[in-house]
């Protein structure tokens, strides 16, 4: 068993975890980030990719709305490459709450959020897919953000400053001595290898799994899970973010992301964190509800669906707790639970991840007795090779620019070439062995219409040729990858996708007999 030492151990590689890693690294504090799966494997990778203007929360939570506005402005300034500053439209359709519609501008104004009324005709001109029944529309400052690029770039900068990232490293034990965690035992879920990490501070940024982690330190966090599912359309339906102008509810938001659009969400209370996947019922519900605002949702082709879990802390018992910085997110110092060097940060939104990281890092510094101040408010997020492959339609542009005849495409749908796969493998190797899913997370592999049916085989073959796979690991890798893709395809099996999956089954079962 290997032993590692570090100042801070962060558990959880979502936006918050990677954000904290970067924040600390910029303050000169080195850390290890341990993630049980991979970057953004949880809710950070299963959301809308929406950079809120705050308008959505003006009625329910003015404080969160203001936070969103401020953080949105900061991110647009400091991480422009992760953001498509699309602007947004809040649109109401006939039947929606008239009172809410009329109160909306003043509520926005109170929070300092811009909401410019436009007439229906203009709105329809800007976004022709809006329903004929639209009755009110406002222009807002919403934007879309690439959460994968964001987290990958955050981590990349932390790594460049001396921190490190461990993938598939699940925390299984906190060794507590004298009210302090002495070391944390990690297990590699792929190899079964165990590692002890001796850290001065442990930050629990495991998102929905934060409760599970805290449990390891015998601390109870009362968590409630809310599953949210989303669907991705084959084509980009709008230029802007479209948000239903009503009290925040299900199937409200359509966010453009590169060449596609993402529509969601649902909110379903669940009790466990196993088997989080979107269901047929959720998809059908969202489509029929969403079609009221954007009718084309009824007929357009979908590529896949996915689901994430929002971690909610039931604050009933802890009302007035001064550690809950805002109702948006929760920062818990477990000193009071008798574990001095253990902090939990959870809840919150992708938009406010930086603020969450800042507050957490502040607390870490207090614990460590370091007075370094936060730099992420001013320092731009650098663009690196680690994040560049996630942007839709970007890979083909880069490939076409190079025009190297030998650099053939391994993934046809999203046009990812051998050299791009090489670069992805290099990037993945920083935190463990490369595998299809690991590459997929860092790029568009498997995200096109074939959903991995063809590219999984081609990339696996290429990885064997490069010596990155051996024995029959490729078979399980392909199965694992395709199954993960399948979760998202399954609720959308009609029209062309059912043909596509029939072909996939004919190849992988009928011919390759991979199921045997």
């Amino acid at each position: 068993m290997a032993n590692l030492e570090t100042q801070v151990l962060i558990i959880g590689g979502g936006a918050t975890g990677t954000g904290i890693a970067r924040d600390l690294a910029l303050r000169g504090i080195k850390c290890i980030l341990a993630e049980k799966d991979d970057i953004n494997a949880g809710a950070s990778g299963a959301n809308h990719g929406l950079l809120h203007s705050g308008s959505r929360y003006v009625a329910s939570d003015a404080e969160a709305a203001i936070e969103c506005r401020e953080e949105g402005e900061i991110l647009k300034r400091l991480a422009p490459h992760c953001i498509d500053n699309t602007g947004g439209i809040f649109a109401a359709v006939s039947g929606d709450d008239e009172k809410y519609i009329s109160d909306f501008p003043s509520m926005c104004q109170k929070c300092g959020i811009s909401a410019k009324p436009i007439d229906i005709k203009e709105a329809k001109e800007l976004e022709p897919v809006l329903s004929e029944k639209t009755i009110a529309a406002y222009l807002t400052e919403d934007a879309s953000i690439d959460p994968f690029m964001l987290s990958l770039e955050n981590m990349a900068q932390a790594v460049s400053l001396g921190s490190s990232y461990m993938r598939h490293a699940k925390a299984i034990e906190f060794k507590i001595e004298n009210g302090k965690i002495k070391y944390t035992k990690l297990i590699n879920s792929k190899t079964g290898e165990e590692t002890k990490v001796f850290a001065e501070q442990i930050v629990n940024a495991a998102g929905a799994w934060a409760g599970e982690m805290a449990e390891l330190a015998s601390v109870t966090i009362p968590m409630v899970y809310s599953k949210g599912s989303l669907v991705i359309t084959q084509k980009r339906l709008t230029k802007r973010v479209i948000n239903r102008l009503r009290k925040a509810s299900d199937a409200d938001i359509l966010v453009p992301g590169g060449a596609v659009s993402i529509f969601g969400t649902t909110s379903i209370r669940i009790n466990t964190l196993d088997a989080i996947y979107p269901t047929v019922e959720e998809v059908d519900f969202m489509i029929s509800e969403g079609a009221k605002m954007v009718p084309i949702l009824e007929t357009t082709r979908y590529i896949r669906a996915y689901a994430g879990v929002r971690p909610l802390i039931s604050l009933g018992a802890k009302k007035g707790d001064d550690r809950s910085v805002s109702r948006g997110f929760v920062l818990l110092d477990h000193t009071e639970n008798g574990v001095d060097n253990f902090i939990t940060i959870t809840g919150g939104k992708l938009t406010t991840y930086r603020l969450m990281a800042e507050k957490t890092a502040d607390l870490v510094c207090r614990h460590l007795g370091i007075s370094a101040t936060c730099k992420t408010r001013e320092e731009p997020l650098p663009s690196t090779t680690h994040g560049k492959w996630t942007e839709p339609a970007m890979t083909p542009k880069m490939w076409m620019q190079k025009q190297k005849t030998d650099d053939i495409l391994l993934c046809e749908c999203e046009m990812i070439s051998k050299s791009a796969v090489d670069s992805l493998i290099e990037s993945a190797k920083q935190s463990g062995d490369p595998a299809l899913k690991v590459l997929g997370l860092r790029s568009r592999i498997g995200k096109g219409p074939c959903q991995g049916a063809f590219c999984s085989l081609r990339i696996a073959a290429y990885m064997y040729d490069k010596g990155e796979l051996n024995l029959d690991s490729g078979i399980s890798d392909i199965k694992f990858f395709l199954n993960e893709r399948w979760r998202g395809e399954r609720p959308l099996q009609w029209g062309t996708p059912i043909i596509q999956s029939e072909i996939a089954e004919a190849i992988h079962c009928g011919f390759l007999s991979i199921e045997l």
Partner: protein
Amino acid sequence: MSRIELKCDLLVIGSGIAGMAASLFAANRGIKTIQIGKTNTLSFTSGLMDVLAVHPIEEKRLWKNPWDAIDTLKKDISGHPYSKVSKDTIEKAFKELVAFLKSADVPYANYQNKNVNIITPIGTLKPTFFVPESMLNGVSALEEKKPCLIIDFYNLKGFSALQIKETLKDKWQNLRTAQIKFLDSSKEQFAEQMAYDLEKPKNLDKLAKEISPHIKDAEILGIPAILGVKRHSSVLSKLQELLGVKVFEIPTIIPSVPGIRLKKAFEDKLQDIGVQSFYSQEVIQVFHKDDFVFDVTGAASMFKIRTKGVILSTGRFFGGGLSADREKITETIFNLEIYGPFLRKVWHELDFFAPRGHNINNCGIETDEYFHPIDKSGKVIFNNLYAVGSILAHNDWTRMKCGTGVSVATAYSAVNAFLNQKG
């Protein structure tokens, strides 16, 4: 604009293996046959012909002898198409098919009347029954673990000899691999194009020269299935001659060359035996009184087909025989009753590779013993309509490995039933 009307006794709709087989059997029996379908269906097959290899699929139970497997299957799944045909029928059907293919210079064979294991491009083993003769060498070589060289080609995607070797490591230690650069290696390689290239002797010579140094102690060479299309037999024997070792082909991912060989054989030779075929045409509308009358594609220049009987072999979703919307599954030409009005949420399993298979794979058309489609009450819908092939219900061919067998056997039975009914 007046439309041309064509008349025939039997119209076969579909150009997959079931449609091709049905047209063949019909023409062989002197039935005036028209076939209509997509152009390219067979190039999406691997070129391997399954009879039955796995049953029950939940147990992943593999059968060496397909005929024994069929006996068990008939007892277990009463709705399976095999339960409506005798083993004798299946054998006769294949005999006729294989004889035809031999005459078209696409020889097929089986190995000791048993299921064989064919190496796939990812190194798994695919159990199947009839295989192109060019693959048979590989079957025995694997069984006898002969010293073997497997080659792949630079820039031929999805085929890595190394992967095959690694995946088969505990089954076949005597494997070596080599990567060969094919003719113009600067670009991406496509199996079909390589196959045509190799029909030219100068290219084959060049390839043999590239491979030769790697042979060493190997007694047999495994190569992706690219050894010619129409001139396949001569390309194979010439290569063996040039290299001095036996050569076997390893099937590739679609579009596959063995599938294209089948396609070309059928497309060219069926016409020779009198089948009038229209590929890349679609049925737009169908009327039925005593005869069926079909309107076939193309705005103002449509043509009509009047026929006494129809064999429906349109396949499933990819073939175009079935289509699905959010609520239901429909048969596309006659709007026939579909078995399995399951809700969409139970169409598919959560696990893509679930051993029991997806429910949707069992949906399809139910028929009587003559393959007349029936409705819910079990009544025959049209007594001159037959449904064959993968569109039939209770037939998870991808997991059972019974696709070609079901297609060929049901086509055979349906053609005979039509003949008997016609008197």
